[in-house]
């Protein structure tokens, strides 16, 4: 098999394998719940695990573009939708754990949590922003929206990721080590994009710079991203 250009069948196999791999922690958590091995406070354990897996999968999804560019393996892009949807599934699990397992769908308590507790406010906002992304993940939706608009909409994933890390940061009582690690990974993933964007802008500026007099015959068209 060629790593550069897998056949459609190979790509399908890669996707299936990745999906299975992503299901392992979910299975592990479900088994722990059923066998009562999640410790003294299993609901809290599920809450923390679903939250952390949402963040991990989100960061993995955001890693696809930089990995593709660094490795030159363009088919990696074909995994992104699935990773995004797995992220969303974990987020749904996280939201349900809170609203259902923890608060027993007590709407007053749920509303009070969203309004009174800033970390839940931002966490809930992150979920709300994720919802349209999940709903427009199909190829049909891309066609319906048009590539440019679809892409503009899906850039809000950066906001979702920032809110997600803030959610974790604000939840922690005193030991910020773990949220700090997530924040650093996110900063790297967003930073590399900003860096490349800046490089691209400069490259185009340089290309568009007026050439030495007397040698240039054509017409200059400046193509500079805003």
């Amino acid at each position, binding site marked *: 098999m060629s790593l550069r250009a897998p056949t459609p069948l190979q790509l399908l196999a890669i996707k299936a394998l990745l999906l299975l791999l992503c299901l392992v922690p979910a299975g592990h958590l479900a088994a722990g719940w059923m066998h009562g091995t999640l410790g003294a406070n299993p609901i809290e354990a599920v809450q923390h695990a679903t939250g952390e897996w949402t963040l991990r999968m989100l960061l993995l999804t955001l890693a696809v573009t930089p990995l593709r560019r660094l490795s030159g393996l363009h088919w990696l892009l074909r995994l992104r939708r699935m990773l995004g949807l797995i992220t969303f599934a974990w987020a749904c699990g996280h939201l349900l754990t809170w609203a259902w397992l923890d608060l027993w769908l007590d709407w007053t308590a749920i509303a009070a949590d969203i309004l*009174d507790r*800033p970390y839940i406010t931002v966490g809930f906002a992150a979920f709300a922003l994720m919802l349209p992304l999940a709903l427009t993940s199909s190829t049909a939706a891309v066609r319906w929206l048009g590539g440019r608009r679809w892409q503009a909409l899906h850039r809000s994933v950066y906001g979702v990721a920032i809110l997600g890390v803030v959610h974790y940061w604000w939840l922690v009582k*005193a030991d910020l080590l773990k949220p700090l690690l997530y924040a650093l990974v996110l900063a790297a993933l967003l930073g590399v994009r900003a860096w490349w964007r800046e490089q691209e802008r400069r490259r185009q500026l340089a290309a568009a710079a007026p050439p030495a007099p007397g040698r240039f015959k054509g017409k200059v068209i400046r193509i500079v991203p805003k």
Partner: protein
Amino acid sequence: MLIRLPDDIAPSEITPQALFEGRRAFIRQAGLGLAAGAALWHGLPTSARAGTLPAAVRSSPYNSTEAHTDWASAISYNNFYEFGTSKDAPLRNAPQMALRPWRVRVEGLVNKPREFDIDDLLKLAALEERVYRLRCVEAWSMVIPWLGYPLASLLKAVEPQGSARYVEFVTHYDPAIMTRRPVLDWPYTEGLRLDEALHPLTLLTFGMYGEVLPHQNGAPVRVVVPWKYGFKSAKSIVTIRLSERQPATAWNKSAPQEYGFYSNVNPQVRHPRWSQASERRIGETRRRPTLMFNGYADEVAGLYLGMDLQKNY
């Protein structure tokens, strides 16, 4: 005044007599023949079993009749940040702490300052079993049968001076075995007003479940202040200092807008992280309402007459 007394205990919360008697019998057996209780220590390193308690255990009028949290949960779900910030880290790391020799200094505004050897401190007064609700600020709770005697017995022995108004607890800190990251301002300190410290509910605690305290639960000596959030009940104490000024406390220094000096359990004071209106009793799935002063309002509400508990949270 914002103190609201709780309703009476719901009939559903009262443990059936037979079950209760059976449990008493079990505890008596475990408490009197302390060696028998050692069977419960399976899976813990031998260092966790340091020391024994005097056999005579008086029972107390303050006992909760609710079902005890199971031992396995009580020793594996702990906040003891010096040994790690996850709930199970103290169980793994705290047994490195050497419990003998252990000395407790009682100093400050007292007529008879004294440094106690832990084994002398243990014998200063008769041990009682106190079954208390423990409410953590993180909105979970347990019911634990502690063994100890009122802190007042110790304080009276050292004779507080008239100017003493507060009691500060300084806890053990050993960077060789505890975290060096400045998660909190080590050593962990806590404090009470003198009248709170002298209240008969405030227990100087050496054991639980008929056993000496496990390391992660604050061995060899801690306080238990059942009407306050759990972090007020300082663990592994090395110094008790009486002072005229309100002492600084670890969590208050870390986040003063969240953790006040009083930190009485109060379902009406909102907290930015956890709803304090309800709690999850460890071992139960559904939340239950949190009671004012953790259900000890009859005993302690009088300490706070005339105080705005929204401000003095």
